[in-house]
């Protein structure tokens, strides 16, 4: 599989602050890749280096094999970036914005494709409306359109659903999924972990400028999360031997954290020995949020 993105020992320093401390990662063509991390972890810095907005202090980054510094023209032609900030040029309409952006990438007479992008993003009826008059969600969609006007094979979305309502978020997910199914490599950063879990096939986590996890979403969920069981117990409730496992609730209603499914049998045995009847039991599925918290707290 060819690499869509290769990041090789990239360091980025701002004066005395090290934003990225030797990050290396690879995203294969066609992947839906998630880049997660708390605020200030270096996600946007890494994306900015890929996009040529920042220069690395050392190390190399390549997009579809093109070095983002030495071969910047080819690297930028194959990359579409949806920025985190809701920025727009207030002088222009939606269509002008897309036409101008298309022209920056060297594309003339790109009207048919721009019409298609407008249609895909449900912006056709707003094509001739000034950017200032659009709602936040519509401006977000125009930003996505601007990232697509030059038909890039690699698309980076930096928190595309931040501040977006549920309906628009769902339709953005659907659209981005479709782009991925059509063969586009997608790199997504988000603070919505359920979004990353639902969309991304592979996830890397950044913490203080270092990659602390890089694996398939399924492996991460298996490797780090264990499981939890929710119990409703008859009196006298949770026996003292199981108290250390309790993460939530008290008395008869509680939630226990286990290292894995094989711990369930031990819990049931302890309850049986204590003479506590189980009224209800539910094994909770592990989620990415739990994995994320565990990794970040290490």
């Amino acid at each position, binding site marked *: 599989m060819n690499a869509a993105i290769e990041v090789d020992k990239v360091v980025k320093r701002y004066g005395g602050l090290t934003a990225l401390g030797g990050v290396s990662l690879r995203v294969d063509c066609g992947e839906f890749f998630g880049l997660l991390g708390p605020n200030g972890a270096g996600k946007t810095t890494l994306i*900015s280096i890929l996009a040529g907005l920042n220069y690395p202090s050392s190390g190399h980054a390549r997009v579809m094999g093109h070095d983002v510094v030495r071969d910047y023209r080819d690297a930028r032609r194959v990359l579409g970036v949806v920025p985190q900030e809701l920025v727009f040029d207030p*002088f222009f309409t939606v269509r002008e914005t897309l036409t101008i952006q298309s*022209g*920056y990438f060297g594309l003339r007479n790109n009207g048919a494709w721009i019409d*298609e992008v407008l249609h895909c993003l449900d912006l056709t009826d707003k094509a001739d409306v000034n950017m200032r008059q659009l709602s936040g969600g519509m401006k977000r969609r125009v930003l996505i359109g601007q990232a697509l006007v*030059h*038909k890039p094979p690699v698309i980076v979305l930096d928190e595309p659903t931040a501040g977006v309502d549920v309906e628009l978020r769902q339709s953005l997910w659907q659209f981005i999924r479709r782009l991925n199914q059509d063969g586009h490599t997608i790199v997504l950063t988000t603070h919505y972990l359920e979004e990353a879990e639902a969309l991304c096939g592979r996830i890397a986590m950044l913490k203080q400028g270092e990659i602390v996890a890089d694996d398939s979403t399924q492996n991460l969920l298996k490797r780090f999360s264990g499981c939890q069981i929710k119990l409703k117990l008859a009196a006298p409730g949770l026996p003292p031997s199981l108290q250390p496992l309790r993460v939530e609730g008290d008395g008869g209603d509680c939630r226990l954290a286990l290292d894995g499914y094989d711990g369930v049998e031990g819990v049931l045995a302890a309850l049986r020995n204590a003479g506590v009847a189980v009224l209800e039991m539910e094994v909770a599925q592990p989620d990415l949020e739990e994995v994320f918290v565990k990794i970040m707290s290490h």
Partner: protein
Amino acid sequence: MSESSDKLQSTPRIGPLTGFSTLFYKEWLRFWKVNVQTVLAPVLSALLFLLVFGHTLRNTGEPYPGVNYTAFLAPGLAMMSVLQNAFANSSSSLMQSKMTGNIIFVLLPPLSHREFFFAYLLAAVARGLVCGAGVLLCTLWFVDLRWAHPLWVIVFALLGSAVMGVLGIIAGMQSNKVDELAAFQNFIILPLTFLSGVFYSMYSLPPFWQQLSHLNPFFYIVDGFRYGFFGIGDVSPWLAAGIVAVCLLALSLLTQWLIKTGYKLRH
């Protein structure tokens, strides 16, 4: 967002210089869409200067033989308009784009530093020339401009607007806030413009100030431009053009290097 995006798969066609011409076109649109503010207002200001100064100083004698003060003043004001508006175009566009964050749309595409430079420069020259032409057009009916050497008029209009367009790019890159740009404008551009001989002939000054004026490159722009109208100047138009051209070349090389290194644009 219901339809397929399969058309993304087809390969786009890339035209030569399209990035440059698009950025120029965008910069042109940016000032033309608000031409009341960017063209009409400066022309009106220049005309008010002409009416007030021309009327109150009309009896101060002829700055050049056979050229009354109002006629002397008109090309100076036209050039002042060219200079100030060329500077304002590139500087305010860049500074505002940096402030609002939409500069990212210019930084993400594969534009070279030369395309970036010449697009902003050409748009600044265009606005400077439109404003200067506006001032001259409005003065035609009450000022006798002789148009002695029209080619020099064009040469100095182009050189002057280009120098200021380049300075505007530097100021726009340097400034992150309105007050930083205002400081550049008020403490560098405005004094140099007002002390360039727009309102007076250099020979009306005491010797010390005459010498000092020779250090002001804007003086050569205004003087050469005025020579194009009246065939009279304080220095030779060839010397003036040479000095301005050297300044333009040096500033252009510096600015292109700054853009190439990403000075205050890319970090």
